[in-house]
């Protein structure tokens, strides 16, 4: 047996403090400009983090600085989506994943409520029709009428 076999195999731990490639700071400035536009003109800003030339750790650093706020929402529509407010009210993170749980997009949305959380107008109109169908005479549910009440 060679003494080389005694060399221990060491698996390096992932660096808990990711390297700072300096790409998070400009995004934070963009977020600040967006917040100001929201406060003064009610204008929504969306930043696509997929389009950023991030180095390894840049995204983690940015998300760590933005932190976690009071709202944390999950959506099930064509795969899971996760929406959470950051520690800075008005600054939201919207992550869409596909049915195979792979990330499709990661957006910073600067608005009072992210668009994806709102019920869509066409769906609301459809909901009236669907509810009417449930309440219709063939649905087996009798509506209370003024004479029987």
């Amino acid at each position, binding site marked *: 047996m060679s003494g080389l076999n005694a060399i221990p195999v060491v698996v390096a731990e992932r660096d808990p403090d990711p390297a700072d490639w300096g790409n998070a700071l400009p995004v934070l400035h963009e977020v600040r400009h967006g917040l100001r536009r929201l406060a003064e003109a009610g204008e929504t800003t*969306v*930043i696509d983090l997929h389009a950023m030339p991030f180095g390894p750790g840049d995204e983690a650093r940015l998300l760590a600085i933005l932190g976690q706020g009071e709202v944390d929402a999950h959506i099930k*529509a064509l795969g899971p989506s996760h929406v959470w407010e950051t520690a800075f009210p008005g600054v939201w993170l*919207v992550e869409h994943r*596909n049915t195979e749980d792979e*990330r499709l*997009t990661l957006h910073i949305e600067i608005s009072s409520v992210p668009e*994806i959380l709102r019920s869509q107008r066409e769906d609301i109109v459809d909901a009236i029709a669907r509810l009417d169908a449930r309440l219709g005479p063939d649905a087996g549910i009798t509506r209370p009428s003024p004479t029987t009440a």
Partner: protein
Amino acid sequence: MASSKTLGESLREQGVSRRGFLKFCAATASMMALPPSMAPAIAAALEKARRPSVIWLSFQECTGCTESLTRSFAPTVEDLILDVISLDYHHTLQAAAGHQAEAAREQAMKENHGEYLLVVDGSLPGPDMNPGYSTIAGISNYQMLMEAVAGAKAVVAMGTCAAFGGLPMANPNPTGAVSVMDVVKDKPVINVPGCPPLPMVISGVLAQYLVFGKLPELDEYHRPMAFFGQSIHDRCYRRPFYDKGLFAETFDDEGAQKGWCLYRLGCKGPSTYNACATMRWNSGTSWPVESGHPCLGCSEPKFWDAGSFYSPLSTPLPGAGPVVVAAGAAGVVAGGALAAMANKAKAAGVAQRQPVKIEELEAKLEETP
């Protein structure tokens, strides 16, 4: 076949909510390198879009481009193929084989004449070459391409081989390979180079055609500006190190470990236009430079013949390549010169080598407590 239903109608029939549709559109905008604020416009366009017929021809290629397409994840390839496009002919993905496959191609071409999108991967032997180098069902690549081009609305040359000739066209180009652009002159050609192209770029180009119903803005090499408009170097997260003059000199020195610029290790990022630096590979996990390897420049014309992958861009090309492969005395002389250079490099390497004997290593081990 191209469907008479709009995409909005078919998605609704499948029970996809508008919230799901909005999410799909947000992913599509990101995939097309458009600002997220374009999502509502994309939703409006996709709502009315009809599935176009797509015919995909594979010539002198390695199927890497199809491998890449089947890994496009936004939308999933199932969404892309079944909901967004109608893929009527593709050797690798279709169930039909032999005569039935060719009949499907001919039927799709007839029924969608003037409307279908023709996707080609791989280069093809030039019209004057021996067609025997590459045939399908006994039909030469050139003949099959020209027949399909006649009824196509546009041609997408998928991958570097179709766009620029790629590996088959590299010196000494034994099959006389040519690119699609070399032989198709009367129809719009969109080049989507890369070896292979990024999956997101493949589906992004197809989605862009679907959403806007027209061809994207192209650069001088017929590449869509949305994906090939900026150089790897300009979008590289290691760019600040280039600006500071901090370079890795070998693959294991301090610079390499600290993630400095890979220019001196042969990175072709400054002369390469592609979207790897932002879209990345393997579902956005990483890309070559992030894993410590210089960009090879695979989306540029003649990248196989542009000198060593590991020589800096500033290194002059040897220029001896074509001479070496040519027969005759000149080739022998140049070949001899190259061999002498290689021997010199080898001798220098041997002189610098610091061999380690196993006894020394074991002695070191014994020293360690």
